[in-house]
């Protein structure tokens, strides 16, 4: 800032060596902030925490939540991370950043100075500005409230454990976790979560919810066949011929359970709600992996290079950086022993870099494919891309032929009606569009996860719950459907059915409890 400081720094040799100190961190943080401001990166305030590797493992195991409720699955996560780390199979993530306001980022004590600078550029400015700017995060998460909500959730779970026993809570959470990907509103913006309100209204809600559920189930259950036999003569008022409940299929299974499951206690409904709210919080992250990482890599790359150009870091540091950067954005080929799908860092970085290229140095192909952005202001364009897309639409919109060529993407069709696999598109002029299309679909959550919705709850009969799975390209459900339905059955309390639909026809039915058990007990 001040003149004094600058002159002091001029006397300083550019940073070299690998030891860091808080002074150096602050200095570089300051410089990065200056550069980031030039590029109009708008961020939440940063809370940068220096931690040890053990603490990193802790943070890692709780899927990045700085305070989490207790559950064995986090313990499992921790043990596997710990084991892999001890055996040297895996390095720890260098960075971990939490979508909160202030934005919490962790720096590991063991990192070299270069790493710390890189992580600050990547997480504290890259991810942070993405969290603040991207429309999904803006619409679906409330960064200022999440930490308080997590604290509330942890306290509430602990209280429930005290009152109802660890086992009861654990079982319920297991069941909720199995369904948490179906605990999100996909199209409707959720109301923001506010912890004060949560606590304040919780009692109220418990009573209210229960009353509502009671009203819904108040009709005395009658035998199912009665229901069907009553025709117009016997039931002139149509009391037994009301519509299906719910009248529209429900995509948010946990929400439906929270509001409608007949037997859940109020505290159990509250736990369902907690899992649901957290799933909702992570929902944008699952849809913006490529963009988020690509954006962060793009900016750490830009910032590091500028630091070097301004002679704030030395050659040793920039070489160390380039070595680490290339390994992060490396994309092994499909036949490589380490191949593990498309690397979101590689794809995202390549795409953002290419957008910049298209803006600055467009060629004829770019003008044909991207008439809107070719030759435009690159900074404006990358910001626009970051703000208004998710992976699916980002790829659909911005995957350029050059990136497809660089990565040598090809499309492989696996159809069980064909005994051969077919290469149906490669990186040539006929294939670009199809590859782009297919890759976009591949990143659509609606394609990655089976489409399952609540179809009907039999509120006047046996109280069973029916779900519908709409098959997509004839893909069936994996065997895990049974354990998940068992969990669902625990929550619902009455038999659960699932109909797997293929083109308006029921291709397969699943149910829990299994029919053998039914006949055995009956």
């Amino acid at each position: 800032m001040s003149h004094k400081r600058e002159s002091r720094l001029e006397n300083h040799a550019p940073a070299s060596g690998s030891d860091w100190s808080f002074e150096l961190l602050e200095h570089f943080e300051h410089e990065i902030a200056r550069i980031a401001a030039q590029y109009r990166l708008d961020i939440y305030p940063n809370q940068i925490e220096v931690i040890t590797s053990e603490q990193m493992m802790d943070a890692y195991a709780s899927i990045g939540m700085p305070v989490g409720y207790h559950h064995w699955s986090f313990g499992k996560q921790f043990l596997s991370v710990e084991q892999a780390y001890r055996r040297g199979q895996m390095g720890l993530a260098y960075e971990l950043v939490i979508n909160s306001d202030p934005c919490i980022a962790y720096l590991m004590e063991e990192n070299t100075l270069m790493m710390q600078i890189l992580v600050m550029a990547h997480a504290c400015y890259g991810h942070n500005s993405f969290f603040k700017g991207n429309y999904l995060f803006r619409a679906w998460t409330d960064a200022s409230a999440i930490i308080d909500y997590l604290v509330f959730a942890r306290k509430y779970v602990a209280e429930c454990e005290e009152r109802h026993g660890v086992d009861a809570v654990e079982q319920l959470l297991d069941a909720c976790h199995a369904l948490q990907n179906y605990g999100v509103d996909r199209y409707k913006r959720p109301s923001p979560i506010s912890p004060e309100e949560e606590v304040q209204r919780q009692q109220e809600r418990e009573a209210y919810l229960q009353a509502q559920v009671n009203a819904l189930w108040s009709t005395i259950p009658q035998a199912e066949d009665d229901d069907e036999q009553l025709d117009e003569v016997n039931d002139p008022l149509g009391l037994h011929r009301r519509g299906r409940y719910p009248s529209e299929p429900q995509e948010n299974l946990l929400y439906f359970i929270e509001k409608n499951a007949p037997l859940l206690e109020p505290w159990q409904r509250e736990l369902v709600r907690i899992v649901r709210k957290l799933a909702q919080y992570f929902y944008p992250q699952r849809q913006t992996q490529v963009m988020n990482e690509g954006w962060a890599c793009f900016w750490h790359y830009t910032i590091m290079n500028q630091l070097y150009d301004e002679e704030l870091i030395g050659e040793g540091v920039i070489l160390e950086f380039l070595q680490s950067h290339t390994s992060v954005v490396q994309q092994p080929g499909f036949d490589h022993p380490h191949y593990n799908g498309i690397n979101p860092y590689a794809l995202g970085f390549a795409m953002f870099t290419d957008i910049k290229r298209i803006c600055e140095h467009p060629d004829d192909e770019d003008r044909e494919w991207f008439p809107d952005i070719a030759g435009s202001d690159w900074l404006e364009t990358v910001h626009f891309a970051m703000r208004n897309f998710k992976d699916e639409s980002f790829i659909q919109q911005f995957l350029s032929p050059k990136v497809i060529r660089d990565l040598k993407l090809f499309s492989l069709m696996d159809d069980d009606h064909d005994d051969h696999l077919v290469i149906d598109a490669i990186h040539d002029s006929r294939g670009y569009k199809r590859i782009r299309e297919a890759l976009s679909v591949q990143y659509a959550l609606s394609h990655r996860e089976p489409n399952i919705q609540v179809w009907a709850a039999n509120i006047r009969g046996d109280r069973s719950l029916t779900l519908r799975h709409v098959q997509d390209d004839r893909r069936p459900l994996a065997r895990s459907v049974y354990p998940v339905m068992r969990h669902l059955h625990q929550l619902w309390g009455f038999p659960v059915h699932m109909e797997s639909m293929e083109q308006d026809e029921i291709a397969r039915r699943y149910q829990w409890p299994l029919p053998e058990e039914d006949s055995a007990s009956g």
Partner: protein
Amino acid sequence: MSYFIDRRGNARNKSAVNRQRFIRRYRSHIKRAVEDAVNRRSITDMERGEEVSIPTRDISEPVFQHGQGGKRRVINPGNKEFVEGDRMRRPGGGSGGGGSGEGQASNQGEGEDDFAFSLSREEFLEFVFDGLELPHLERKQVADMDEVRPVRAGIARDGPPARINIVRSMRSAQARRIAMRSPIKRALKEATEALEQEECKDPVLRNKVRIAELKAEIERLEARLKAVPFLDTYDLRYNHLINQPMPSNKAVMFCVMDVSGSMTQAHKDIGKRFFLLLYLFLERNYEKVELVFIRHHTAAKEVDEEEFFYSRETGGTIVSSALTLLDEVIESRYPAGEWNLYVAQASDGDNWDDDSTNCRELMIKKLMPRLQYYAYVEITPHAHQALWGEYERVEEEFPDRFAMQQIVEAGDIYPVFRELFKRRVSA
């Protein structure tokens, strides 16, 4: 906009609770692994953790997923020679060697790898003892041998020069010096002032006699001041040590086992578990625990652990041979005044007919008076034989130092062990 927080000093076991939850949930798996480890390891090698692995399918967290089949299109990177329209065989389940990985959708990672993790030493032992609640079996129930050991007991005015407490001595010396010198100093000051006053007076008015008196006084006082010693014998302080009887922290454990033909390997494994428990118990109570293995059929022999548990012998059984050897070993190497003596004996109850009476004699007359504790387990599903009856009489004689129990199968060991020690608590 940004601020740094150094969290390195914070607690680092944030995941400890979750880890405990995990262990609690998979108790049965872990218990099995621990039991295997107990069978595999040497008795003295229990004080470390253990690798435990659990089949992945048992700990998976199910979610709705797409299964195999249907139509799927996958985009892969790194095309080398494919062109559009290429067709290739689906890689078969078994062959798997073909160069091209084909990029089968990898979301079906039905990996059958085990989920492996390490138990810490404490967790391992907790599983070994599983509910034995050792903390309640503190050493108070065991009548330990006393050993006299010097213990610090404050400060004394006398003692050998080697134990001078310099700090305390110097401190009292200083206090004494202040106390002794200050009245002299005060008198000195008064005398000096008086002298000055005299000398300031007009020469005519000076009292020569008075001045001479004062000078003599000052001289005398200065001499007295010098005479105050810097350190006096009176100042010396010594660290005081008193002799206190302390429980001995050395123990020796004798493992006595029948290895005659009637003892199968299964019997021995059960015996091993029993010895192990006693060893772990002792190890937590004593700084030093020695092990002596004595095995016997018709003759007794002192052996090492390996031979004790795993070598095969046949023949009849004479228990008294082991007891005699035990007595000799104690006599020659472990004088009862210095060592806490524990004996654990495992047998299937067989004994040479006339020998059981000898055993009782030996026990009551020679052994029991010197032993801290004698635990006998009989590993047999059958009716008791003569030895049991004789031992019951020993138990009557020494109810709080002798214990005996019957074990039928491995599962009985923990309860029996607990029973053996519980009786002592109530006794």
